[in-house]
């Protein structure tokens, strides 16, 4: 079938997964469903010891079998050791046909590509896929199509039972021997454990892996003992230098600063820039700069931010400290300052990814957002955004919360340079649609700014704003004038990846790269 954004989704895929094609951002509003439930084991005897001596023992106690689904989180980002550690043990035990259900997978997880080749891993369900895993997927090495979900969509899939986790592995900077785990207080702090909260509640077996065992009770706990089966102490859960950045530096790139300036003006001149407004940025150069540029305008107009969310960094934490931001709700920390802030500031809260963005619960922070600033690999003239497939046709990105907060917010702004090298960012048709165009409001490039024509209210609001506004078609034309019109990437018919919309409908598919062309 051709779905609502004009993407062809093979019927056999829809049938096989029991899914529908994408029908619009609020298609499943008010739909009732029965939540999934795990098959759990009661720890009744007070003398029971949850400590296991190594990962092998944890796997054995959880009765690891061929075909199981194992889950992981990515709070340790490129510094993570847990996924590789567990999978090495799984491989050593001769287990096969494993599905990895991670909140994201990154460059740290290149060794998994080898397990894909060997048939040890045959399914990947993740928000992000990079490096060699992405190459393995795009070259058709994975037995089943990878399923790419947003952060909110992953929680939904778990809660609705689209995916059932047999064993959840939760790397934790600190834990007590009874499984109360936290993101702070250890030698490899990541701040919060938001991504794993749903895993802890919905997995049949839950194993906490830590490199810093602390006295009971490790409170307030991010992951509660009530959900944890086993605790395993290892030497290192990750590389602290790669888990968080010491300090994310303010960009000096004039192009990024220029786009940040446009973006700041757009926010300041919008009808939503009022006391109590809310905001999410990423850690990219331009979007981080917006934080800094917005501050003096807030001070001048005496406007305070009601809450800030997302990948948290120093500039926002400083605004919290100085009273310009009333609350930070945190699903991921990016730098040392944000970890210090969550430890010390009572208005800096840890939230679950369900609270963040699961579209099928009864309300999320995403729905309460005014402004979000996002990036893009590609944006097409229908405003569809690709953040997953590279210009070489290979899966190498992560939707993260992109589709969630674009859909939830009142004003979603994409910042991206018009061209990167010879690759046009603004194009006729994105290789892979990850965030549907009807949820994307403004595109800011170094060459001009396009407002989605669906947002007549915003176009009206900016009629006295002096910025280089143009149409998205004009941006595309400028890009093609510079780099030429790109040829289409050659793909085979076979589907190697499914891009699931946050509500579980199918937005797009990724096909196997045709390298003979």
């Amino acid at each position, binding site marked *: 079938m051709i779905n609502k954004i004009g993407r062809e989704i093979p019927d056999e895929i829809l049938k096989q997964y029991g899914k529908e094609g994408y029908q619009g951002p609020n298609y499943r509003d008010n739909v009732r469903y029965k939540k999934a439930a795990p098959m759990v084991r009661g720890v009744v005897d007070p003398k029971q010891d949850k400590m296991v001596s190594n990962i092998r023992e944890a796997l054995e106690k959880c009765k690891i079998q061929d075909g199981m689904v194992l889950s992981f989180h990515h709070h340790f980002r490129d510094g993570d050791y847990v996924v590789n550690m567990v999978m090495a043990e799984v491989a050593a035990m001769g287990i096969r046909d494993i599905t990895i259900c991670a909140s994201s997978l990154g460059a740290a997880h290149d060794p998994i590509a080898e397990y894909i080749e060997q048939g040890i891993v045959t399914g990947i369900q993740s928000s992000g896929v990079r490096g060699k895993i992405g190459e393995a997927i795009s070259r058709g090495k994975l037995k089943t199509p990878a399923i790419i979900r947003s952060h909110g969509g992953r929680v939904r899939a778990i809660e609705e039972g689209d995916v059932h986790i047999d064993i959840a592995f939760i790397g934790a900077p600190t834990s007590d021997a009874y499984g109360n785990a936290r993101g702070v207080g250890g030698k490899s702090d990541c701040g919060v454990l938001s991504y794993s909260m749903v895993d802890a509640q919905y997995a049949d077996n839950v194993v906490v892996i830590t490199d810093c065992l602390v006295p009971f009770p490790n409170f307030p706990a991010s992951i509660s003992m009530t959900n944890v089966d086993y605790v395993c102490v290892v030497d290192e859960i990750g590389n602290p230098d790669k888990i968080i950045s010491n300090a994310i530096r303010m960009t*000096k790139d*004039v*192009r990024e600063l*220029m786009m940040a300036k446009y973006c700041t003006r757009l926010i300041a001149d919008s009808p939503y820039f009022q006391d109590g407004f809310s905001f999410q940025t990423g850690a990219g150069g331009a979007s981080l700069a917006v934080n800094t540029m917005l501050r003096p305008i807030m001070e001048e107009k005496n406007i305070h931010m009601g809450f800030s969310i997302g990948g948290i960094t120093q500039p926002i934490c400083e605004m919290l400290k100085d009273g310009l931001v009333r609350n930070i709700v945190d699903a991921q920390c990016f730098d040392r300052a944000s970890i210090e802030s969550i430890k010390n500031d009572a208005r800096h809260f840890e939230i679950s990814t369900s609270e963040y963005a699961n579209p099928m619960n009864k309300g999320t922070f995403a729905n309460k957002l005014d402004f979000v600033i996002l990036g893009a690999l590609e944006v097409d003239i229908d405003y569809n955004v690709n953040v997953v497939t590279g210009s070489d046709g290979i899966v190498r990105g992560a939707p993260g919360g992109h589709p969630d907060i674009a859909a939830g917010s009142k004003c979603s702004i994409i910042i991206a340079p018009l061209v990167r090298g010879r690759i046009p960012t603004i194009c006729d048709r994105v290789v892979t649609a990850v965030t549907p165009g009807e949820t994307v409001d403004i595109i800011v490039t*170094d*060459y001009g700014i396009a407002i989605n024509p669906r947002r007549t209210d915003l176009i009206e609001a900016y009629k006295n704003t*002096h910025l280089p506004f143009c149409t998205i078609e004009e941006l595309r034309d400028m890009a093609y*004038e*510079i780099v030429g019109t790109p040829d289409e990437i050659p793909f085979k018919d076979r589907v190697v990846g499914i891009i699931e919309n946050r509500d579980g409908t199918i937005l797009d598919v990724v096909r196997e790269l045709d390298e003979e062309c």
Partner: protein
Amino acid sequence: MMHPNKKRLRRSMMFLNCQKPGLIKDPYIYGTDSIILDLEDAVAENQKDSARYSLYHALKEINYRGVERVVRMNGLDTPHWKEDIRVCVAGGADTIRIAKTESAQDVHVVEEHVLAAEREFGRPEGSTLLMAALESCRGVMNALEVCNSSDRLIGIALSGGDYTRDLQTVISGTGVELQGARQQMVIAARAAKVQCWDTVFTDLDNMEAFEKEVRMIKMMGFDGKSLVNPRQIEIVHEVFTPTKKEIIFADKIVREIDEKKAQGIGVFMVDGKMIDIAFYEGAVRTLKLAKAAGIYEEDL
């Protein structure tokens, strides 16, 4: 007839290495008035040939969207300058910046080759403008004759590094070593009714000192500054943007003079100040600067 672009606004003239495709592909995005595509110091001796091909195709194929395309050629004391001139003219560069200009004679030599190239490549005679970089004590002392040397010459630019070496001193940060040259050059340029640009400022981490220098050279009478990084453009443009009061006053002067001229009145009062035709040019310049800064929209 004067070349229509001879007196265009040139607050910011940004150097770019001709050999770097990533730099020359879209510098217009930063809003600089002029770019200076460099064949000289930025290009290694064994890449001089290569830089010319890049230059030629950049000039021919990149749409620089109205930004003036100046090329800095190699000095007359090098083996490169003749081919530099040929490629500049063939590619249709707006202006050639002559490195290490010492005298009017240097300008004449370049002018002669430019004319020959214009004929060779079928470009209108006189279409290629020139500017002279003064980089030695002799050059600075000859500022006035250089300014008067050619109809093509749009102005002179100080090159502080070579100049201070010749003066047997160094760039100190105080500006004292450049004082004489700056003063001499700007007076010469004004006397000859051409433009004058200050030397580059290379410490990108000290934007405060940069701004101070820009304010100073503006007060001295310079038209603008040679720049090494896009981060510097905004500050220059800010400093060269007239104040609201100045714009309103200039607007009034231009209107009044136009009107009074038609009535045959030579001297009159604006806001309590005695005004005559001598104010006209300055007022027009103020409005041009204001327009470039996007804060004045009339077409006077």
